[in-house]
């Protein structure tokens, strides 16, 4: 079974703090993704990575950065947290595959509240 784990289920931070969200997958997947999930807005891609040290911006990268130093770990960084970054954050991973995107496997999510 593919397992994607996220470091925290719930997190409360103050405005201006630097926040790290960690994601680890144990299936040797090349691709990893960070989404935020908001009611009425669905899933929106923040950043993704298709290899170690490689990253690409998604649809809403502003205010976020990422780090992928090892294949199994993908970190999302909020440099200076703001209240509009209060959200559910989902990490996902997938194999690269010959045909492009394979099934994405999701973590349980981190509910971040910025006060």
């Amino acid at each position: 079974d593919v397992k994607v784990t996220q470091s925290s289920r719930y997190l409360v931070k103050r405005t201006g703090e630097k926040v790290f969200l960690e994601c680890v997958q144990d299936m040797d997947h090349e691709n990893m993704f960070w989404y935020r999930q908001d009611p009425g807005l669905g899933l929106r891609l923040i950043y993704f990575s298709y290899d170690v040290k490689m990253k690409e911006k998604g649809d809403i990268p502003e205010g976020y950065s990422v780090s992928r130093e090892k294949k199994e770990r993908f970190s999302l960084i909020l440099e200076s947290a703001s209240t509009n970054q209060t959200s559910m954050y989902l990490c996902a991973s997938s194999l690269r595959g010959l045909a492009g995107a394979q099934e994405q496997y999701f973590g349980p999510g981190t509910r971040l509240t910025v006060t």
Partner: protein
Amino acid sequence: AQRVTQPEKLLSVFKGAPVELKCNYSYSGSPELFWYVQYSRQRLQLLLRHISRESIKGFTADLNKGETSFHLKKPFAQEEDSAMYYCALRSNSGGSNYKLTFGKGTLLTVNP
């Protein structure tokens, strides 16, 4: 730019009734489409993909290129089908062909 539209935020049906969750897409290339589902307090997971042409948990979805649609259907809804459903489209442009564009989701409630 690609776009996925799920016109219904909420859909409520009675147990045993047919259910159809609508999904329309906008994409200039050859699309690859998926349905993902999130049951209460569970992870988001793949339900089905159009290239597999399979039925999962009684659900089917047919890609209609003429109408640019990929509606999810089930002839007889069950209470355990209550969940949030997301339609997703795969991009096939360069290094971005691994990412998915998701719709905003439809919350399905099946009433007893």
